[in-house]
């Protein structure tokens, strides 16, 4: 059994719908996999206290934490419009985790803080990433979630799925270009280039079975 926690800020005034679609897409995949036990926190529940309470029973063994929310521009934290819920103050709660987030900038500071606090592996953006308009939500979500979904569904290493994610971005960028959606392709390419993997990329999903 793999323990998975997903936090998503469906309450955000600008991108709540996008974050919720990200969650729904991941949930649809996860719900078809018998080996995964997942629970989720919606935006209004994303407080440091709630997150800590949800993580603490899991972190004596390996687990996966996924977050679809904003990050602050300094890269130090994950936050909702109301409060910071992951930062240096609770970073140690994520020891033994694979931490996957599509929030802006958090690879700049929070990512390395997590790795220094015995988080196994981190995937996230090292700069401001772009969202898109509704027509292209599915493309963006499929790209941003690719590594996570492949990791959960297969026996590939995190590094393999990360490399395949880059190739998948390339495919989608070419498709958008072929459809004359140049600007959408441009922003997707920027997102591709801002995604980084920190920590141990050699782990597979079997390393997270508890």
């Amino acid at each position, binding site marked *: 059994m793999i323990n998975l926690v997903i936090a998503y800020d469906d309450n955000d005034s600008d991108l709540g719908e996008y974050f919720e679609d990200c969650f729904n897409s991941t949930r649809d995949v996860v719900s078809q996999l018998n080996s995964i036990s997942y629970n989720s926190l919606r935006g209004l529940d994303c407080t440091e206290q709630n997150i800590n309470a949800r993580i603490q029973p899991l972190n004596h063994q390996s687990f996966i934490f996924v977050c679809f929310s904003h990050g602050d521009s300094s890269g130090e934290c994950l936050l909702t419009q109301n409060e910071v819920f992951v930062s240096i103050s609770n970073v140690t709660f994520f020891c033994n985790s694979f931490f996957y987030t599509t929030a802006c900038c958090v690879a700049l500071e929070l990512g390395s803080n997590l790795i220094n606090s015995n988080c196994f592996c981190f995937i996230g953006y090292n700069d401001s*990433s772009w969202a*898109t*308009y509704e027509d292209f939500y599915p493309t963006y979500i499929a790209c941003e979630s690719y590594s996570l979904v492949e990791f959960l569904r297969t026996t590939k290493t995190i590094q393999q799925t990360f490399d395949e994610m880059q190739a998948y971005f390339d495919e989608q960028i070419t498709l958008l270009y072929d459809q004359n959606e140049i600007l959408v392709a441009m922003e997707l*390419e920027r997102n591709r280039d801002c995604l980084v993997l920190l920590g141990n990329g050699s782990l597979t999903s079997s390393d997270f079975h508890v």
Partner: protein
Amino acid sequence: MTLVPAKIIAISDDLIPEIDPIFIGLKAELPENEIVHFTNSNEGLRYVLDNLNQKMVVLLDINFSSRTEKSGYEVFDDIRKKTSLVYIIMATVRNLSEIPLANLVSWINNDAVSLENTFNYPKIISLIKDAIHKLDVQVDSVIEEWIMRHPPSKRTTALIKTKDGKSYSMDDILSAIRQREPIGLEFEKNLLKLAIDIFSRQKLSTDD
């Protein structure tokens, strides 16, 4: 595909009348409705700064006889504070050695400027045509050409969102690039990267 024409903005002292061979020659060789002539430098500067979303070549006289008007040096500096995408041709009958060194340095260090010190009409026309070509091959012109292929309704529709909630339409993007806003520079860099990336990948697939 026809490129969007560049406006030619002549800002010259009213001692050079509109019937000067330069302006007659300009109107004979370039679309007349794309040529705008100001004999007051302040008004010319205002027009340029109010229309930075257009491609422009500015033919700028250095000396203005009225003390209430900005000199050509000042007009140049004021334009460059806002954008480097307007092409400026400084025109003067003065000897180069009479131009203050600081101004020469400023012109050299700021892109897209030519200096013509004769007011020779064929030479100036040639410089303007060269400037138009340079503008046409700049990234913003290529983007404009692509944007203008879309219907107005699509051009004004927000299609890029930042994760902090700002939205940009095609027209917003073009304007931001033209006005050298930080987000415009970011778009420009990303579009160039995309073009190179697509080009290199297509070449690789052709080679395969």
